[in-house]
């Protein structure tokens, strides 16, 4: 069953000014509970606007967002409740940290949700654990942490609301390769433990290929493709025409295929590529 459904969603910024710009145009999609959706698209393709409409931060000018089959704007006064169900981690979330200690900052969301002290304590420690923050760090000021730790603390602040759907807007931007891997692995561990739905906006095709069940491709405010990761990355040319690309390893394998080697479609990571090449060499009797 689909947990979130979007019907004919449109949004234009600055209506009636010289700066008018359509960000999302007549977009429809449906996502099942427990899926990991990779969102890719060129800068300015409307990804950020779309994800902000999913939790009611932006009110669509036309169209609907259905959460568990109910329009989130049916009761505009209760839009805050939606935000606890659809957690949103913005780009560079570390700039939203504000409280005296990391612990207090993470508890901001649960407190707004109206949980009791005991529940808050439990969920804050659990969330901190998910993102790998030690108990010692919890008592420090968020402004004394390193860049990567700040990022983690901010993500923990959203996870602490225990949302059914978690939206991450470029969670790894500006992190070093090691930090990226670690963060993504932790997010995926959290996903498996909580079995929630995840939207992950990313410019890194490698990250998307590694973790997403399905990929949605945005182009000029429209939904260009929404399909399994394999199928989306099989269309290298179409992606390139939208200023995107396929993962590097996929690109190499496609090039080999173009040279006449017998290689299957939809190879998304180095392990798969390795097996495919070994098989090919075995078939040709070279090893």
């Amino acid at each position, binding site marked *: 069953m689909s947990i979130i459904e979007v019907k004919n969603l449109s949004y234009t910024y600055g209506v009636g*000014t*010289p700066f008018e710009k359509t960000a999302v145009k007549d977009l429809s999609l449906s996502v099942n509970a427990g899926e990991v959706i990779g969102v890719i698209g060129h800068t300015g393709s409307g990804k950020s606007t779309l994800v902000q409409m999913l*939790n009611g931060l932006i009110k669509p000018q036309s169209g609907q967002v259905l959460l568990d089959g109910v329009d989130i704007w049916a009761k505009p006064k209760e839009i805050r409740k939606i935000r606890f169900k659809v957690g949103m981690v913005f780009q560079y979330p570390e*700039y*939203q940290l*504000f409280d005296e200690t990391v612990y207090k900052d993470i508890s*901001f*969301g649960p407190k707004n*949700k109206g949980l009791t002290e005991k529940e808050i304590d439990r969920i804050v420690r659990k969330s901190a654990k998910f993102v790998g923050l030690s108990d010692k760090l919890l008592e420090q000021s968020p*402004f004394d942490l390193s860049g990567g730790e700040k990022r983690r603390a901010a993500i923990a602040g959203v996870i602490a609301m225990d949302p059914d759907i978690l939206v991450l807007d470029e969670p790894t931007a500006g992190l070093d390769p090691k930090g990226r891997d670690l963060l993504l692995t932790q997010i995926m561990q959290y996903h498996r433990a909580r079995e929630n739905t995840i939207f992950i906006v990313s410019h890194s095709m490698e990250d998307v290929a590694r973790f997403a069940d399905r990929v949605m491709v945005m182009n000029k405010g429209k939904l260009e493709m929404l399909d399994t990761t394999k199928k989306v990355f099989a269309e290298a040319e179409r992606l390139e025409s939208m200023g995107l690309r396929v993962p590097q390893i996929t690109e190499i394998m496609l090039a080999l295929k173009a040279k006449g080697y017998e290689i299957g479609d939809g190879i998304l990571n180095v392990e798969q590529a390795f097996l495919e090449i070994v098989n090919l060499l075995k078939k040709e009797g070279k090893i």
Partner: protein
Amino acid sequence: MTRDIALGQFVPGNGIVHRTDPRVKIILLIFFITIIFCAFNFVSLGIVTAAILTVIALSQVSFKLYFKSLKVIIFIVIITSLLNMFYGTGEPIWQFGIIKLTMSGIYRAVFVSVRIVLLILISSCLTFTTSPTDLTDAIERLMKPLKFFHVKVHEIAMMMTIALRFVPTLLEETDKIMAAQKARGADMESGGLIKKVKAMTPILIPLFVSAFRRAYDLATAMECRCYRGGEGRTRMKSLHINRLDIIGIAFSVLVLTGVVLCNVFIAPVV
């Protein structure tokens, strides 16, 4: 949210008002403000109104934006004109107790409201058609004589440039932080005054932190490019007075002459 402020917003363009030298525009703005307050009868007020409407028509900025900037002051206009209406002297044409409506009062109300509207229109025209950097450049040039009194003209202008430059950046940042805290369930709409002020903490602290971070970054970037104040600094774009500016000045002088002549030959009504 914060994006809807029309007053003081620059609209890029290439019309003749845009191309006029910013120094000339500032001086002409002061000039026009003086003229607005020199119109004492309907003919001269008409001349000034026509002149200002011509300027804003030439500015190639949509009337909607001018209208938006007027919306901000509509209450001031209504209140001042209402007050003026009942403060006139002379023969009352309608009376109720101590409140009396006179012809001179009505005239005064009309003049006051037209003057305020014109004032806003012409000042908006300056900010709509002049980029903040041009504006501060021009202010720096115009304030140059103050150096004689040891006023740090260049530093003041630089501070203004930086402040203006960061207004949109900080607005955008505020929007972002507000969205992020709202996403964490922050409630900024309901509750009393104290609760509302408290609800601002999660926005103000990150905003201050980021403002300081930007200030540090900017200071470093400026030092890296060997900035050390205005001493001996030259400009990439130096300002020149050209034909367009002279036409603008001539036009304004003409309007002033018209207004003065009208004042001399037609009896004032206020």
